[in-house]
């Protein structure tokens, strides 16, 4: 039913003052699906969204949004897309409900404003000026502004950055509902769990290039199939643990106090790990046998250095 992709990006390049933000990116968004664009800070996610929304000229490459050129055909596209920017976009003196009602008034068949405000938990601050809203409330207002015009395609740039758990779940629910109702969603995030939870397809980008893509479960398959994770006190002697394990196993401390054992994870290996823990006086806070998560894939692909 949806043969033509909603967004088609081929060989996109964008440089700022000599610095390359997007470096030959290829990306397709299937219509009616949620596509998660995952990448570390500075990977080029926001630049890509801004080019799709018609804010910036690409330096090279071809971008088609709903089959159109986002710059040359901006006037035809704007009513059909919804955009949530990372920051701002609202008159500092405008009240939350007032601004949402205004964006609704610019569209032909907007959603009713009040239920949307309630749904996103903004009911209590409808009369509060934007500049006095908390960061999380500003985020939710920006999300509401992106969807109130009943767009076909929504760009959400880090919609849950800085949200508390309740607000994050309200946002997730809304994104799921968008998908159910047939809206195409591009979601950028650096939270793996979010991408895994919400996306039909995930594209991992790093340094302006796509380095992996596919449905989350496919990305998580392949490579180290099984792993055993446990948490304990930081700085355990993983070398001695490794000696106790069968050959071809690995044991690493991923972050202080978080350990991962990979290899042929079977009951015997589990017993080996727990008896090693007993010998070393370690009571793991948690111990799980799991398949690869998107976070593992992400860290394997993009490296662990902070940047």
């Amino acid at each position, binding site marked *: 039913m949806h043969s033509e992709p909603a967004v088609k990006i081929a060989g996109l390049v964008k440089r700022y003052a000599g610095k390359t933000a997007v470096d030959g990116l290829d990306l397709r968004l299937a219509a009616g699906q949620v596509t998660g664009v995952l990448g570390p800070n500075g990977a080029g996610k926001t630049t890509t969204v801004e080019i799709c*929304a*018609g*804010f910036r000229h690409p330096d090279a490459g071809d971008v088609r949004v709903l089959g159109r050129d986002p710059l040359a055909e901006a*006037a035809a596209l*704007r*009513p*059909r*897309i919804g*955009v949530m*920017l990372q*920051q*701002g*976009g*609202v*008159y*500092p*003196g*405008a009240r939350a409900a*007032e601004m949402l009602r*205004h*964006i609704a*008034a*610019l*569209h*032909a*068949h907007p*959603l009713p404003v009040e*239920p949307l405000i309630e749904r996103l938990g903004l009911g209590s601050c409808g009369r509060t000026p934007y500049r006095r809203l908390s960061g999380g409330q500003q985020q939710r207002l920006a999300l509401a*502004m992106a*969807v109130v*015009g*009943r*767009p*076909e395609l929504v760009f959400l740039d880090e919609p849950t950055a800085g949200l508390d758990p309740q607000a994050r779940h309200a946002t997730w629910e809304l994104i799921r*509902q*968008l998908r*159910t*109702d*047939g*809206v195409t969603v591009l979601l950028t995030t650096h939270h793996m769990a979010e991408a895994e939870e919400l996306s039909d397809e995930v594209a991992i980008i790093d340094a302006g290039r796509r380095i992996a893509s596919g449905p989350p479960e496919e990305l998580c398959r392949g490579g180290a199939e099984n792993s055993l994770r446990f948490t304990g006190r930081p700085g355990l002697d993983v070398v001695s643990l490794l000696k106790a394990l069968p050959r071809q196993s690995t044991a690493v401390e991923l972050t202080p106090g978080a350990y991962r054992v990979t290899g042929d994870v079977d009951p015997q290996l589990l017993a080996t790990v727990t008896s090693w823990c007993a010998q070393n006086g370690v009571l793991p806070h948690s111990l799980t046998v799991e398949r690869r998560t998107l976070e593992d894939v992400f860290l394997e692909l993009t490296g662990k250095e902070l940047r």
Partner: protein
Amino acid sequence: MATGESTFAPAAGAAPLPRMIRAQAALETRMLLRHGEQLLLTVVIPTLLLVLFGGVDLVDLPGDGAGDSSRVDYLAPGVLALAVLSTAFTGQAISTGFERRYGVLKRLGVSPLPRWGLMTAKTLSVLAIEALQVVLLTSVAFALGWSPRGGAPAVLAVLLLLVAGTAAFSGLGLLMAGTLRAEATLAAANLVFILLLVGGGVVVPLDKFPDPVRGVLELLPISALSEGLREVLRHGAGMPWGELVLLAVWAVLGLTAAARFFRWD
């Protein structure tokens, strides 16, 4: 497919243009009226100048002691010019500068409202505020004993001057807002307001300045507006073509430069 229950089912489309522009103009006007510092510039300062200098003998104004031309007859046209300066230039520059800084212009840039629609709405909102200013300031002036000259032709001349002045100041204000940082715009727009208040024939007559300086000051848009209004309202002159042409030149220069150099984010 969409059912009655389905909340987000796409139904995209732009509202009709007149509705979009009306909504945008109404919002912009509310934002200006809600902004305390803006009201200080657009309402409080012109009113105070009119009341203080019109009612009290603080500076030596033409009309002092003269039989038929009172102090307020001199002041009222200048204060009307100042009202246009405060709204079309200073107020618009500062608010647009901060809208740019806070991503409002960027966000509206992806709404169905086209850029020219946004600019039309801004102009309508400036004109609405100016209408309120004119009503307030002329009421105060009449209360102080103002007796303007001229009939219907004078009203037409005044309207043309106000519109030309608005266009000239809007171009310059938007040029500033679209090219400088918001803080720089805030500082510069206020500074220009004060300089033009002093040197633009608003309260201080231009003939108090030495000749060479006066020659330059007379070319400023504020001088053209205040002198043009004064010619018509105080001296009962006909259509002030010289001033109108000067304002039109400023408007073309300012609006062309703003269209060329304005940065939306």
